[in-house]
């Protein structure tokens, strides 16, 4: 374990920003802190960077307590959300700044700066000021600056949020490849679940100052630990159910659930739209389907989204995702029903 965070709590006045956070990170891992804005993910990153002090708990890096090491002596590379490039310095001087601080000899600084600018493909922009560079270029300078001193860890605070969609996707791949090549332990803060799923080895989902789930993309998507995770990562139909005679009932119809442990009486189940099966036949006890009516449809080309309602009296809304070409047959069918595959139904509460 490279970084061990144990029982860290941080308050800003009355507000609890971090609530008893514990987490271990392996050497060379790419970790994402994922959560909505204000959940504490940036604060946790700043604690690791040494930009915030904590009231309780400890952060150990390679066995040493970081509390006694100020930010400037930690040698962690940090890329800030707004990059924080020094506006009075050229790209090259920005990249060389950390090396100056660490007292490298001039010649070595120059060589290292050139090397780093080559790595981020900005050699020809070395003498430009940050204001003369595009957003993506500024981002790459910030990355080169953070990596120039051979930091022991790389911390990225929403590094891509200020960029437009296309640049963002390219940089995602670039950052990930660079990280793999250097083998540097990296923590990235993001509120963009797609970004987290695409880049991270492991994702730490944070809600209201607490870690709610840690896992890789598959685990989080397939086995969300809570309703929050289920809804935050991907889309999820969240359905209130009742339990009677050992069965789960959705709007009065029994629903199978493999995940359910014996004796558990769930109150909320979830199913992802792409797992909902829409069938163009009458629901019967034999086929185990639930009768449904179409409320609205959206055709998106390769797929179509159908909003359905099931049950009588207090109706439940279910969103289903079907192949685009199947939409016509479904909308024209005299009666339709939905089937919720038992292996796709999650217990949320």
């Amino acid at each position, binding site marked *: 374990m490279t970084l061990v965070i144990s029982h860290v709590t941080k308050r800003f006045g009355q507000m609890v920003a971090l609530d008893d956070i514990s987490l271990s990170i392996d050497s060379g891992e790419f970790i994402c802190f994922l959560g909505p804005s204000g959940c504490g993910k940036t604060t946790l990153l700043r604690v690791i960077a040494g930009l915030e002090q904590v009231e309780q708990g400890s952060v150990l890096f390679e066995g040493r307590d970081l509390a006694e090491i100020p930010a400037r002596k930690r040698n962690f590379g940090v890329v800030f959300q707004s990059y924080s490039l020094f506006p*009075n310095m050229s790209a090259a001087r920005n990249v060389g700044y950390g090396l100056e601080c660490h007292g490298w000899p001039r010649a070595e600084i120059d060589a290292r700066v050139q090397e780093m600018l080559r790595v981020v493909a900005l050699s020809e922009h070395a003498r430009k000021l940050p204001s003369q560079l595009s957003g993506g270029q500024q981002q790459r300078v910030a990355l080169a600056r953070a990596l120039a001193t051979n930091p022991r860890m790389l911390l990225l605070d929403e590094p891509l949020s200020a960029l437009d969609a296309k640049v963002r996707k390219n940089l995602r791949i670039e950052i990930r490849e660079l990280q793999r090549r250097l083998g540097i332990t990296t923590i990235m803060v993001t509120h963009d679940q797609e970004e987290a799923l695409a880049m991270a080895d492991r994702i730490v989902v944070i809600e209201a100052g607490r870690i709610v789930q840690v896992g890789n993309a598959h685990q989080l998507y397939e086995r969300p630990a809570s309703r929050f995770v289920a809804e935050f990562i991907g889309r999820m139909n969240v359905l209130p159910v009742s339990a009677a005679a050992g069965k789960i009932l959705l709007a009065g119809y029994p629903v199978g659930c493999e995940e359910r442990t014996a004796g558990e009486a769930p109150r909320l189940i979830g199913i992802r739209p792409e797992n909902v099966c829409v069938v163009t036949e009458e629901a019967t006890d034999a086929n185990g389907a639930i009768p449904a009516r179409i409320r609205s449809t959206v055709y998106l080309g390769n797929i179509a989204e159908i909003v359905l309602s099931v049950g009588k009296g207090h109706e439940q809304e279910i969103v289903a995702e079907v192949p685009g070409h199947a939409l016509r047959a479904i909308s024209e069918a005299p009666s339709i029903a939905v089937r919720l595959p038992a292996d796709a139904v999650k217990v949320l509460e």
Partner: protein
Amino acid sequence: MMSAIVTTDLPRGKVSNRIRLGVLLPTIIVGIPLIVFVLYPLVQILGRSFSTRDGFGFGNYAAMLGNERFVRITYNSVDMTLTSTVLAVVLAYVFAYAIQRSTLPARGLFRMIAVLPLFAPSLVQAQGLVLLFGRNGIINRTFGLGIDIYGYWGIVIASVLYVFPYAFLILSAALAVADARLYESAQMLGASKWRAFRTVTLPATRYGIAAAVFVCFTLVITDFGNPMVIGGDYTVLASEVYNQVIGQANFEMGSVIGMVLLIPAAIAAITEKYISARQHALISEQSKPLIPRPDRTRDTLLGLVVGMISVAIVAVMAVVVFASFVHLWPYRMDFSLRHYAFDVQNGIQPLWNSIWISLMAAGVGVVVVTAAAYVVEKFASPATRLLYFLAILPAAVPGMVLGLGYILAFNNPSNPVYAIYGTLFIIAVANVYYYHAQGFLISSTSMKQISNRFDEASATLGGGRFHTFVKVTLPLMLPTIVGVAVFFFMRSMVTLSAVIFLVTPHTQVAAVSVLYLQDRGATNQAAAFSVCIVATVVVALLAARLLLNIFGYRKMPLIR
């Protein structure tokens, strides 16, 4: 010790209640000079105003209130100040409106004219008016008139011209920002132009107007140069302080009047700070800038007013320049350079003294206000509010009161500051602290715009606080530093009130020479000194402008 200072737990939410020495120490270092050079002299004045022959008490105040002459002088001061303030603000509003909201030609030139009085010693207006309308004034002699400029109206006109640029700068800034959408809606709703002005423009600039009123009020009631020269028998509080202290060496009475002057000045300064803090919130980000459209009637009317004010400002200063180049005003009006030989008591030395003092004030001022702004911004502690208060306190202190405080506090061999008492340096120090509030606010505004993120970025890259300050903060502040230096230089060259009690025959400054020479009737030499002061200020401004332009800071304003 060092490590305590360099940890970068900059407060993002609430300040931690653990106060560490590393945070408090810079506050103390920056705060001590403010206590010594601002608070302590004020306390001395306060103390002296209560000291009577029978010990401590209200005796001096009682004597003053019971004195019919003093009551009249106070009334004079308030009367003259109110008239001058109203006139100055109204005229400056029209002028600023013409510059910002009309299509009048040569607006850049008129703008320059409006701020012209800032380049000259504060009594140049009275000097010029005397040359124009005095007993030997060019107008009276040419047209055989008997206009008597000395007295109430003389002071009022001189004061209006003196404070005009200050009011103009404030109102011009207030009128510069306007939301075109409001005017468009007013127009769509069928409002007449006058109605739109009353319902949109006036309310939007009300804080600017109030700020201008308070600034002008403070400047006029505490100004003594103009009343000295043109007041005649009309005595005001500011000139009375001078009479009491210099004329009768009555420090107790001088202190009492100083305290009386301090009260309205302090109220006005505090109100102004409170008001200008609200000015900014009026314009939202979606605002659309207003582009004035041509309007012949409006522009003609505004042109007339702007033209008349400009003629007045220029005439008063031009006649001073003219007088400095004639053989003997008003008897021999042929060209002569003899007044620039400065064959008066100290020769040209006072001008050099002024330049040295202004350079020192610029240097010391930049360091002092930058340090104060830096500490207030970066070392938040419970003492920060106190430091901020001390830093802007001088805005409420009339120059003469501060100068008198310096005599009482430092003209005393047992005080360590006595070592520099009677030198040019103490005068520079007085100027630094007299103008501290404005310099500090310029500096701290600029520092606020430099994000804390740069400090954090630097820290994560291994940079200590000092390294960050030298390599990042200071270079980013450079244009502001030049601006602050120019500000201190300019004001130190022209000020009279803060230095009048501190000059000695050896450390006399040019602005004081103008007063003495004028007082003695050496009109031509006084004029020559004024011209030299203006020339020095203009040269310094041009040099600073050039420097900033070379480094690419064309937008940095230098005249404030």
